[in-house]
């Protein structure tokens, strides 16, 4: 049945011989958002990795529009920024399949003035913004964010709010794990 958005059916996952996710089911409609809440170690990151397809669920399935292959953009705990490359070069690989140019993505996160700086000179918050710029480049409809606001200042959090709203307005889905309040109006909550 198409048009249901992102659907998780009876997902269970084992991590380190411990059952962290137990028969979890939820649906996020297109344009919707889901906040994953819970204490440290409650399985938020594991669920995001399962949804991304990085980790195979030990039971259950993840569907996007009724299909098994979900087009995802994943932002993990780590920024995946290469210190030896400039900010612009860091985005080149993601830009291959991208819908906008690396410069536009940098502009969207207010990093354009730092485009030609080696990424090792960026601050933690700037690296996080660079990792977020990769999301902007991705054509994927499903954004999976693990603590996206880690190290961001208030202006950058507002900027992220704008990006998330634009993504959802285009029919995209956002699933995010967080401990901090996020500018994500109308998001459903899932407590793990």
């Amino acid at each position, binding site marked *: 049945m198409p048009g249901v958005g992102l659907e998780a059916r009876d997902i269970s996952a084992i991590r380190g011989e411990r059952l962290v996710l137990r028969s979890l089911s939820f649906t996020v409609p297109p344009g919707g958002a889901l906040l994953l809440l819970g204490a440290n170690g409650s399985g938020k990151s594991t669920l995001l*990795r399962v949804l*991304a*397809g*990085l*980790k*195979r669920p030990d039971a259950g399935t993840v569907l996007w529009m009724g299909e098994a292959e979900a087009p*995802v*953009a*994943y932002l*993990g*705990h*780590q*920024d*995946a*920024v*290469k210190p*030896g*490359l400039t900010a612009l*070069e860091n985005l*080149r*690989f*993601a830009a*291959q*399949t991208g819908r906008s140019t690396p410069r536009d993505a940098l502009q969207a996160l207010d990093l354009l003035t730092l485009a030609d700086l080696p990424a090792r000179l960026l601050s933690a918050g700037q690296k996080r913004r660079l990792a977020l710029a*990769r999301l902007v480049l991705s054509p994927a409809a499903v954004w999976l964010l693990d603590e996206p606001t880690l190290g961001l200042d208030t202006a950058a959090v507002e900027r992220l709010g704008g990006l998330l709203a634009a993504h959802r307005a285009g029919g995209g889905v956002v699933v995010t794990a967080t401990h901090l309040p996020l500018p994500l109006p109308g998001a459903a909550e899932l407590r793990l």
Partner: protein
Amino acid sequence: MTAALALLRRELRLSLRHGADTLAAVLFFVLAGALFPLAIGPAPETLGRIAPGIVWVCALLAALLPLDRLFGADFEDGSLDQLMLGGLPPGAVAGVKAVAHWLGTGLPLLLAAGPLAVMLQLDPANVPVLLAGLLPGTLALSLLGTLGAAVVLGARRGGVLLPLLVLPLAMPVLIFGTAAVEAAGSGLTPRPHLLLLLAVLAGALPLCPLAAGAALRGAVE
């Protein structure tokens, strides 16, 4: 295809930025080779006879040096997750990494091998055969090394485990490579040995990236 090229470009740009890594492997190769005349003595007939073996063993060891960073850096900073989601099959990611390893390590070693062999008193007439063996040989070593690097990814003390895994796999390469020069030196044709080397390469070419890709999938889980 464009994604694979983009990844290769990224890898080459990174290895250019960290040029010291390439230089370290080549310098290790030359220095390790230069130890033999000091230890065995500079008698040309002795050195000339074992020169192909020295070049091959040193090339094999030098090719191992950069392997633990091949995926290690990407694994630690989260880039490997992005590569797995970047639209390229894991096997292709591993294949591109193997090509990047060869261009960054194998090719410089190949260029340094000729002068090192002459320095070790190898008959200059046999240098082309040595290089003809090293060309498919280093390619096969890059592929086997990529496989090893992917398998030990995430393991504690992976850097120590890596040579133990790769060196036994590399033995056929070493045997046929040195046998080719040996044959040429005694007036026989090196052709069968070189063909066997190519056969090893032909086997490694599809199998190593596939196996390494499966190991990468396991590593990100």
